[in-house]
């Protein structure tokens, strides 16, 4: 398995559970720490129709080249069931319908699964909300988020306040600093007196609280023990506490990364991060890949390979001014010769580049420009696949999980 994101991890967990001897290699730490932690399946149909109520009803009508069509709707269900098993701190599996979650930009996002810590923030809940932002944490401007949510027509009153986080934190304190203080309930200095961080924070918020029954924070409420932090704050505030998922770097993403690597470990797989796969041997079949370590190239041989290196952001798909390519196996990536046809002039338009990626056969094996299988023992999963626009559809996580599951299981079946 090449790649340590959601697709690679799901693929590796699935294959290891199916009895294969699995090794996952990832060039760097998982990019999950850049993910919001919300796990979507399909929020909007192509063309922008939505929000979608039930993704599973819409999947059969997606275009033929969409990865969901390749793996089929039942696979998406099976894959999400695996996800629910390995991510016990996630909610939303009780229904096929999408949940609606507030985002840190003040929009409402349709998503299939959400962290337990975000549950009390559901936009479909009609209890009033107080949003709390912190001075100098510019990624979450609580009054602005509240105004946006009201404008979006949420069925509750929402007010946003900004308070200084207790203690003398530097203006650009890291999210891990906030999380550490709350995890350990360490003393912070408030007007010259030492107070435990959780108490001091609650004391700052209590005067702002009218009769709201829930209080939302940016997602910094603990790394090691987020449930404990939320419970302690809820107790001191007399209201339910939730986190609003944030942009990178993201603690909900980090926590999901931890849960998935733990599941991978329990499944008996081996994994290594820090060194890239740079080359391979093989023609119709991949014989071996080479992992580069400070100039040494270490051969690694497997019977089956899964390519889950990500898309344009994750560098699983690369582009320069002349062309678009897949850098590890040089799989074919279809694109127009003229790069001015790669994008739409409207910023939020229908950009062809958003769909760049490898095309596959029904078993997720990448195809060359003539439509033949590139390598009989290589499958692709996640954002390296083409044919869908995850940002517009809100389908990134679901496609990674579903195609990762399918690729991992198919690889395991052949390899056993």
């Amino acid at each position, binding site marked *: 398995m090449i790649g340590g994101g959601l697709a690679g991890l799901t693929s590796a967990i699935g294959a290891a559970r199916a009895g294969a001897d699995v090794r996952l290699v990832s060039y760097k730490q998982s990019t999950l720490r850049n993910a919001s932690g919300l796990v979507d399946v399909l929020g909007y149909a192509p063309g922008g129709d939505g929000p979608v109520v039930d993704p599973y009803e819409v999947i059969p009508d997606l275009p033929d080249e969409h990865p969901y069509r390749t793996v089929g709707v039942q696979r998406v269900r099976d894959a999400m069931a695996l996800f629910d098993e390995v991510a016990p701190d996630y909610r939303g599996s009780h229904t096929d319908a999408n949940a609606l979650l507030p985002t840190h930009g003040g929009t409402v996002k349709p998503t299939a699964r959400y962290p337990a810590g975000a549950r009390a923030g559901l936009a479909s809940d009609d209890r009033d909300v107080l949003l709390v932002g912190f001075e100098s944490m510019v990624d979450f401007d609580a009054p602005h988020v509240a105004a946006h949510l009201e404008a979006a027509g949420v069925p509750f009153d929402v007010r946003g306040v900004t308070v200084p986080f207790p203690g003398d934190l*530097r203006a650009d304190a890291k999210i*891990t600093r906030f999380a550490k203080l709350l995890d350990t309930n360490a003393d912070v200095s408030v007007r010259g007196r030492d107070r435990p961080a959780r108490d001091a924070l609650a004391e700052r918020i209590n005067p702002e609280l009218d009769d709201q029954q829930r209080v939302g924070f940016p997602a910094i409420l603990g790394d090691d023990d987020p449930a404990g932090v939320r419970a302690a704050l809820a107790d001191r505030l007399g209201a339910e506490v939730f986190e609003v998922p944030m942009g990178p770097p993201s603690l909900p993403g980090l926590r999901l990364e931890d849960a998935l690597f733990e599941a991978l470990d329990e499944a008996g797989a081996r994994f290594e*991060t820090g060194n890239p*796969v740079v080359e391979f041997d093989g023609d119709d079949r991949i014989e071996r890949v080479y992992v580069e370590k400070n100039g040494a190239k270490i*051969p690694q041989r497997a019977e089956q390979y899964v390519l889950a290196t990500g898309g344009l952001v994750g*560098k699983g798909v690369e582009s320069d001014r002349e062309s678009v390519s897949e850098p590890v196996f040089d799989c074919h990536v279809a694109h127009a010769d003229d790069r001015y046809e790669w994008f739409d002039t409207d910023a939020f338009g229908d950009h062809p580049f958003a769909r760049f990626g490898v095309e596959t056969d029904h078993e997720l094996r990448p195809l060359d420009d003539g439509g033949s299988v590139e390598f009989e023992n290589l499958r692709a999963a996640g954002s390296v696949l083409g044919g869908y626009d995850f940002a517009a559809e809100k389908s990134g996580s679901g496609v990674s999980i579903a195609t990762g599951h399918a690729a991992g299981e198919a690889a395991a079946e052949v390899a056993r």
Partner: protein
Amino acid sequence: MSDAESPVDDTADHDIDGGDEPTFDPNEPNTGEEFEAVDVFPDSDDFDLRPGADSCYKCSTCDTNCPVAEVDDDFPGPKFQGPEQWRLKQTDDDYGVDDSVMDCSNCMRCDNACPSGVPLSQMHNAARGEYVSEEMDKLSVEYWRNRILANYRTSAWFASKVPRLANVAMNFGPARWLMEKTMGVTAEREFPTFATETFREWWASEGGADGSRERARAARERRGEDPDADKKVAYFHGCYSNYNSPEVGKALVRVYEHFGYELVVPEQKCSGTPMFANGMLADARRHAEVNVSSMSDLVDQGYDAVASCTSCSMALRQEYPELFDIDGIDEVASHTFESVEYLRIHEDVRDAIAEADVDGDLATEFAYHAPCHARNQGLDRQAVELFRDLEDVGIEDVGESCSGISGTYGWKAEKYEKSMAIGEEMFEHMESAEGQTGMTECPTCASQMEHGTGYEIRHPMELLEAAIVE
């Protein structure tokens, strides 16, 4: 099967000798072949750090990996220390390196975090070197304290001449009190014990390279391998295995000879790790020149270098080529490996472990801590993955937190509290783990683990020896 594919023959031909460059380099500008970069900052720096600074898109993932920023409200984090500070320096002639660079512990975890391949630790090392050489007062106590700590090898060399006396003197209360008051070396820690026989003295008594050649040949015959097979490694023991924990070096020799490798133990100095961390780049270079010169001769003769300390292997394979331009440095870097890593690449260690068992004190549960420097080399899982299949032994990873000592960092009086605050999470996880014995590859992590929990700490080579060497 082994974890990597075994090379086709025994001469490590997986490796490159002037072979093709890797095809995938995330640091290369992706603007296309016709594009020529404009040289905006013509005489900016000794190291060309611009591609790194340009590759940073400020996602801040590095900051979430920084163990210092998590506990220290004055530390601005790796993104600032690296790309941001570098850019500030290019545009403003008056801008000196911020003194907070001295609070970076050089754990290098940020390197492994960056999705854009920004060479953060290289930027930090360069900035710290510049700060120490241009801004730090050479008459200050801090400078000399750091210099003495960084040159641990020199102190250890003296101490090893009179190990029993040194052991008493270095832990003599009033002397330590005085050291803290005058030099800023914390009195809270126990000094490492000096062995009464260094590894090199033991090695000589075992017949040195000639003895090893005979034993390795016998092992190859016993294993049914070609007795003339070219299995040769040069051992970089570093300071600690030589002066303080020779049992690690001895275990390595026995394990490697068991697999039919003949060893040499070439002339060597400190790897430079504590010098990089203290910005003493001139000292580090002096030591690196000796190491590279003796190792590159051996690499030319077909040897690979192995180190039992993950910081030593990190220095030779990453920091040297990033910071110095010494003849043969790239060849040495690409032929250097950590000792467990090398065996996992070349030998069927997994099978050997599956058939082995252990008795004695090592038949126990281990609380394993992966050193930060092991993470960047992709080695943080090797001990757990290897030993979880070993009968009579249990191993549990105590998590991804940093131990907090970072070599000399936790020895500085003003950083002691911070070092222990960083280590707190590891201590707690060790105590909740089943084992009462610790394990790690890094000798200074080991001393912090011992300091925080009182556990005895072992090296993976010691367990490998107990499992597979008769």
